[in-house]
């Protein structure tokens, strides 16, 4: 079967992933997270940079299950994160409210030697200060295996 014979994926590009409430990195949670890494939290109020992922993922307007559902995919089928990229304009700080905005960039159906038919989901998320100043932008790519189409 050629790729042209696959049914098209849901048309979700452009769907908003804006958060409904500001995300705040709690200082206590940051300390607990750093402790799992064998590291001390920074004394200057900056948060561990991995919060680029946590703050955007938790603060966006969808859970992972909800994001999968937007793509007509059951989260129980096992979405797999494939890649992440981030560009920081400023360091992240604890107890600072951040607004999360973002959108789905694409959902592309393809064949994979490893996974059979799968949809490749790419979405962008941004953190901004309350005054609109950009703090970071991240792009995540997930693979959604479509075993029913294999």
């Amino acid at each position, binding site marked *: 079967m050629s790729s042209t014979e696959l049914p098209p994926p849901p048309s979700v590009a452009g769907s908003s992933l804006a958060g409904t409430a500001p995300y705040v990195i709690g200082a206590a949670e940051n300390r607990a997270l750093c402790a799992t*890494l064998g590291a001390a939290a920074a004394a200057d109020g900056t948060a561990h940079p991995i919060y680029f992922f946590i703050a955007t993922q*938790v603060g966006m307007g969808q859970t992972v299950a909800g994001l999968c559902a937007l793509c007509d995919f059951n989260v129980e089928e096992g979405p797999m994160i494939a890649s992440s*990229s981030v560009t920081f304009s400023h360091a992240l700080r604890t107890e600072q409210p951040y607004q999360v905005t973002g959108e789905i960039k694409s959902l592309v159906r393809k064949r994979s030697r490893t996974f059979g038919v799968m949809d490749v989901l790419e979405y962008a998320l941004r953190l901004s200060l309350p005054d609109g100043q950009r703090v970071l932008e991240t792009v995540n790519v997930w693979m959604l295996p479509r075993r029913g189409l294999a």
Partner: protein
Amino acid sequence: MSGGLSSSAAALAVGAGLPAYSIVVDSQSMQLWAGFLRDPNPIHLDPRAVQAKGLGDKVINQGPANLAYVITMLQRSFPHSTLVALEVRYAGSVFAGDAVQAGGTIVEVAREASGVRIRCDVWLRANERDPAIAGQAVLVLPKE
């Protein structure tokens, strides 16, 4: 913080390796990360869920936790740096009990008016398997 690379020209040379960061992954940390990520996926919490999916017999570490090991390695290598950009592929799983090692190599050094911009290849390996994470990071060191 000790243990970082010197900012000397010799230490910040293309091809220089970054000090490795090692940690043993435990299931208690995965429970904490499930809270940080608000992610109740049972493959991180219950070995029976992992077995049911045919993925092994130990709980699987969260991908962002794996990435956090890499970032921590960078922070230890360059204690006064600013992380500017990061791009990684999640290429494999890390399981409870795995001894993981994060490391990297400097691939580009640019001395600029504001400081030194460094690009590194970075990776995370578990028990000598193929990298679970591979990618590149860009950091800026302040001007001395």
